[in-house]
C-alpha cells in the first residue's frame, strides 16, 4: 500500500502532518509519540526576531472549538536554530518551517536564512494569522500583496514553498491562483477564522488580545469547502486542515482534494490523534481495496464530474 504523497518537490512518507502552532517544535511531543511516523513535522511560526506574543488569556474554549490569540510568540530565527534545530534535524521525516514577517523584506529574509540551513523540508508561509497587528492576515487577504510575498520568498530560497491561505476571503480561488502563479509549490488551507468570546460577568472579551482565531471541529465544514474550491482553481497540491480529529475527517479532506492533511487543535486534547488518523486511514484503504492513498485525492470531485 502506498501512503506517500508529494507536495511539489517535497515527498512525504504519508499524508498525515501536524498544524503549525499546535505541535510546538516537535520535541515537546516526542515523549508521547514517535515523530518519525508522521508525514511531516510542522513547527510554530518563526519570524526574524524573537516575539513575546499577546497578553493572556490567550485561548478560550468554545463549542467544539478553541479561539486562540497567542500572537506568534517565538524565539526568532536564531533562537530557533540554536534551541530546536539540533533536535529537529535528527528526524527522519520532513520538517516544515512555518515563517512570517511584518514586511515583504522580512519574509524574504527569513526564507533566505532557512535556505542556508541544511535539511529543511519546506517553508510554509503564514500569511493568514489573525492575531497580530502587522503582517499575518494582512498579506493573506489582499491578492496582490499575497503574490508579492510569495514571489519574494520564491526569489529568496530554493526550498519548496507552501502558502498558508486565509479562510477570511469571499472566494479562495483567486488567492490560490495568485500563490500558485507566484511560485508556491503547495497550499495549506486553512488557518484560524477571526472570532471572539465575551465574559458576560465582567463584560470583557475573554482574550487578552480581544479577538482571536477559531479552530477545531467547529470549523471543519468551512475548511472542507475551501479545500474543495481551491482544488478546482489550481493544480498544485493542498494540505487540508481545520478540525481534523479522526481518520474519517482526514478522508473527507482527501476526497475534497487535499493531498495531505494536518492535525491541529486535536493535538491539544488528544496528542495521539495524528497516529490514530494514520492508522484509520490505512484501515480505510484496506477495507476499500485501495492500494494508493492518492486514489482518494479529489475523488469526490471526480465522481461528481
Amino acid at each position, binding site marked *: 500500500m502506498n501512503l506517500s504523497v508529494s507536495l511539489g518537490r517535497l515527498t512525504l512518507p504519508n499524508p498525515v502532518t501536524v498544524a503549525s502552532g499546535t505541535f510546538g517544535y516537535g520535541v515537546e511531543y516526542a515523549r508521547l509519540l514517535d515523530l518519525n511516523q508522521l508525514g511531516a513535522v510542522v513547527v*510554530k511560526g518563526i519570524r526574524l526576531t524573537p516575539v513575546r*506574543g499577546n497578553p493572556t*488569556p*490567550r485561548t478560550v474554549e468554545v*463549542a467544539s472549538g478553541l479561539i486562540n490569540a497567542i500572537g506568534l510568540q517565538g524565539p526568532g530565527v536564531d533562537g530557533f536554530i540554536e534551541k530546536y534545530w539540533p533536535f529537529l534535524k535528527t528526524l527522519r521525516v520532513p520538517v516544515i518551517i512555518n515563517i512570517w514577517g511584518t514586511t515583504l523584506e522580512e519574509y524574504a529574509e527569513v526564507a533566505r536564512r532557512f535556505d542556508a540551513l541544511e535539511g529543511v523540508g519546506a517553508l510554509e508561509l503564514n500569511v493568514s494569522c489573525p492575531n497580530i497587528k502587522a503582517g499575518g492576515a494582512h498579506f493573506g487577504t489582499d491578492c496582490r500583496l499575497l503574490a508579492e510575498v510569495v514571489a519574494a520568498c520564491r526569489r529568496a530560497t530554493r526550498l519548496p514553498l507552501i502558502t498558508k491561505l486565509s479562510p477570511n476571503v469571499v472566494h479562495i480561488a483567486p488567492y490560490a491562483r495568485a500563490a500558485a502563479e507566484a511560485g508556491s509549490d503547495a497550499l495549506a488551507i486553512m488557518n484560524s477564522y477571526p472570532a471572539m468570546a465575551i465574559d458576560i460577568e465582567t463584560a470583557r472579551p475573554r482574550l487578552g488580545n480581544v479577538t482571536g482565531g477559531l479552530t477545531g471541529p467547529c470549523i471543519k465544514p468551512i475548511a472542507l469547502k475551501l479545500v474543495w474550491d481551491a482544488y478546482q482553481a489550481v493544480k498544485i497540491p493542498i494540505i487540508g486542515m481545520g478540525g481534523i480529529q479522526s481518520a474519517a475527517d482526514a478522508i473527507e479532506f482527501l476526497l475534497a482534494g487535499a493531498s495531505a492533511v494536518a492535525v491541529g487543535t486535536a493535538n491539544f*486534547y488528544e496528542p495521539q490523534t495524528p497516529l490514530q488518523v494514520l492508522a484509520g486511514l490505512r484501515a480505510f484503504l484496506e477495507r476499500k481495496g485501495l492500494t494508493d492513498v492518492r486514489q482518494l485525492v479529489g475523488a469526490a470531485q471526480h465522481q461528481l464530474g
Partner: protein
Amino acid sequence: MFEDTVTILANERETDAYFRLVVSAPRIAPRVQPGQFAHVRIPPLREALLRRPFSIFQVAGDTFSLLYKTVGKGTEALARMRPGETLSAIGPLGQGFTVPAPGGETPLLVAGGYGMAALYLLAQRSPQRGVVFVGGRRRVDILCEREFAELGWEVRVTTEDGSHGERGLVTQPLVTELRRGTTGRKLFACGPTPMLRAVARIAEEFGVPAEISLDQPMCCGVGVCLTCVVPIRTATGWEYQRTCTEGPVFDARVVLWEVPE
C-alpha cells in the same frame, strides 16, 4: 510523561463541592514528584474539547488521586463519573516543588482551597516536618486537615467567616509565625493567585525563600500551545514562561505579577 487511559477506582464527595478521585495509572503514579499535575480528558465533555489540569494529590502504588472542586462543566461532568469508567490522563507534568534535603529547611506550607492537593506529597516526602497553614472561605473549604495531621504536621486553619480555626486570611498566622523566626525556613504555597501574591510579598519582606505553584488556565498542558504563560524575570529583563512546563512551581522571586510596562 505518559498518556494513559486510567480507570476510576473511586470518586467521592469530600466536603461540599470537593471530590476525591482515585485512578489506577501504573505508568504515571510511581513517577510523580510533589507539585506535579495530570492533564485529564473527561470523556462525557463532548463539545468542550480541552483537558483539565489537576495537581496530583496522593499516590499509592499504581494509583494516584486528585482532590478537585466542581467549578464548571468539566469538573461537574467528572463528579458524575463512576468507578470502572475511564479517563485519559497525561502526566506527571510540570516542574514540582523542591523537596527539602534531609536536615535542610523546615517547610512552611500555605494552602488555599484545593491548593492543599498540590502540597500533600511534599508534606509526605519532606524529611523535616513543618507547619501547614490552610485557609478557606468557610469550614467546607478546609480540606484534609486530618491527613496532614496524621503525617505529624502541625495544621493551622483559618476561615474567612471564622466557622473553623482562626477567623481571617491564611497569611495572618503565617506572618505571626515568621515573626517568631525565619532562619532555616522555606515557604511552599498553592492556592488562588491573590493568596500566592501575598505569600510572595511576605517571603520578600521576611527574606525567606518561597516556591509557589501558579494556577493558570491551560490548553495543551505540555508546552506546545503557549497558552499558560506568565511573565518571569530573567537576567536580562523578562520573558513569558509556560506554567505547564517551566512551572507550575516557580521561585516566588522571579514571578512578575504584572506584565512590565
